């Protein structure tokens, strides 16, 4: 009981510090998404029921939203919140050294089409470079840019644009 409460407190602290840093920088307010009831909270290494450990589904579930990092308008720098997310990704990739991944770079709709393709590529590379710097073999990582062609948030407002300026890591099953 005591132990459980300690862990829960630690998680809450982590979550709130992540939220604070998100507000302080540029990450969208809605993120990371609520992990939901089916996410185990007693260990970060436990597998979710029905999900094969080491699969993309496992990666996505384990990352709890940290499979994506977010950028300011026209920017591609990696800030401290991005570093934390990428380190979490790198830890998972270290556990499954046979897995390869694609980093998908995206831009919001408020840019011209071709520039956004180049910008998405730059963002994907920034994320890839950081993953490599923390130990992921570059040969395991590919990049692809979708520019503004694949938004996740469909509004035409600042919060939607903030969620669309992203680099998402997707592991290859």
């Amino acid at each position, binding site marked *: 009981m005591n132990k459980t409460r300690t862990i829960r407190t630690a998680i809450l602290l982590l979550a709130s510090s992540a939220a604070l840093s998100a507000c302080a920088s540029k990450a969208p307010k809605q993120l990371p998404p609520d992990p939901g009831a089916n996410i185990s909270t007693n260990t970060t290494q436990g597998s979710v029921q029905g999900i094969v450990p080491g699969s993309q589904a496992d990666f996505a579930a384990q990352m709890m939203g940290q499979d994506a990092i977010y950028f300011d308008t026209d920017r*591609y720098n990696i800030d401290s919140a991005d570093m934390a997310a990428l380190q979490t990704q790198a830890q998972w990739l270290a556990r499954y050294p046979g897995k390869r991944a694609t980093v998908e770079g995206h831009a919001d709709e408020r840019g*011209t089409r071709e*520039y956004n*393709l180049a910008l998405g590529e*730059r*963002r*994907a590379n920034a994320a890839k470079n950081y993953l490599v710097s923390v130990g992921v073999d570059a040969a395991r990582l590919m990049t692809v840019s979708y520019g503004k062609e694949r938004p996740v948030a469909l509004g035409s407002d600042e919060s939607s644009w903030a969620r669309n300026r992203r680099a998402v890591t997707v592991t290859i099953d």
Partner: protein
Amino acid sequence: MTLRLISALAPVLAILLAAPAAAQQSLPTPQPTEQVPEEGLSGAVSDDSDWQDLGIAIPAFATDADVPTQTSAGSTSALGMSVARVITDDLKNNGLFKPVGPDALPRPAFAQVQAPAYDTWAGRSAEMLVQGFVRAAPGGQVTVGCYLYDVALKQQLAKAGWTVGPGDWRRAAHKCADLIYSRLSGENPFFDSRIAYIAETGPKDRRMKRLAIMDSDGANHRYLTTGQTTVLTPRYSPDYRSILYLSYFNGSPRIYIYDLETSTQRLLLQSTNPVFAPRWSPDGKWVLYSMATAGNTDIYKMPSGGGNAVRLTDSPGIDIGGSFSPDGTRIVFESDRGGSQQVYVMNADGSNQRRITFFGGRSATPEWSPRGDQIAFTHIAGNFRIAVMTPGGGEMRYLTDSWQDEAPTWAPNGRIIQFFRTTRGSGKAGIWQVDLTGRNERKLSTPVDGSDPSWGPLRP
């Protein structure tokens, strides 16, 4: 697909129209369109109100014998009506004139084509009169004759004729509209041209994007790709034989060439890096493309038939796009090397790169006018607006003001610009066009939503 001009028309039509042509021969031959000085817009804009208000009557084209044709329009009589409608729509839809079409006018007899009833037309307040004829020609072809008359002066101003295959009858109508437009405006023709674009359907997060082509008036529309793969940014080759475009066919963005004669496509170049933003040189001998290496995008040039590429830019920023000057000696392109998207000009070998946009905000997607006198681009400062400037970066003028207009492409005569407009919220896009005055703006009619228009040159 051949369109044969009956050159100078007089001798040929003299045979075709034996009796009326006799009275014709002392009349002046068609005058070449006057060249407007290259500098500035004054006196050369596309909707000079003096002639926008011209009353132009375009009655149905006559025929000597109403016989069936292999055209989609039907018999020669029905075809004569359709040809006059196409001409009327060309002139009307571009905000250039206010013509009165064949559905509201009596149809002249064949013998009147070259002997107009001037007094009748003057009584209808027509200042200009377009008459013509349609005849069946050997081999399933049709011959279209086109005449422009000044009603007040009782004088013929221009004439031409074309013999076309049954599938090309609309081209003869566009050629006639081009003749009228050129003669009355002093500008170069542009109606007989085609447009490649991206047809869009589906919800904002799963838009299906297909390569499509159509005539300048939206007719003869055809999809070239199925939509299973996202495709973007087509560019018609100057000879209309092929289209460069970006496709995610193998999962990552690469440039393909679609061959319109064989309906096949091939990769422009093998690369492990993303390749995008394809462009033709005006003579079709070169292709510009932009390639990202480790996140850094630069512009390259390669022979369109294949061969070694030359890297033109090497700044640490994003250098992308590019549009040749009409003489092929310079390239205008986009770069964020100075911190934000701006427009730069360089020589065609990459030398002498310099920024030309200092308007505040961001400047993107530059396209050099086929006339050479203007560069169209997207200016971003709040709204995304289509603007033009001189090649030196002066005299910037906005042509549109909407939430998001981008990617201008020039009409062959450098007097009209198409672009695509995205609707806030829904993300739906449509192809629009505007003339250089900014006053005549309209949405093109496409079967579904559209983006990335690429206007090809005037067809020969």
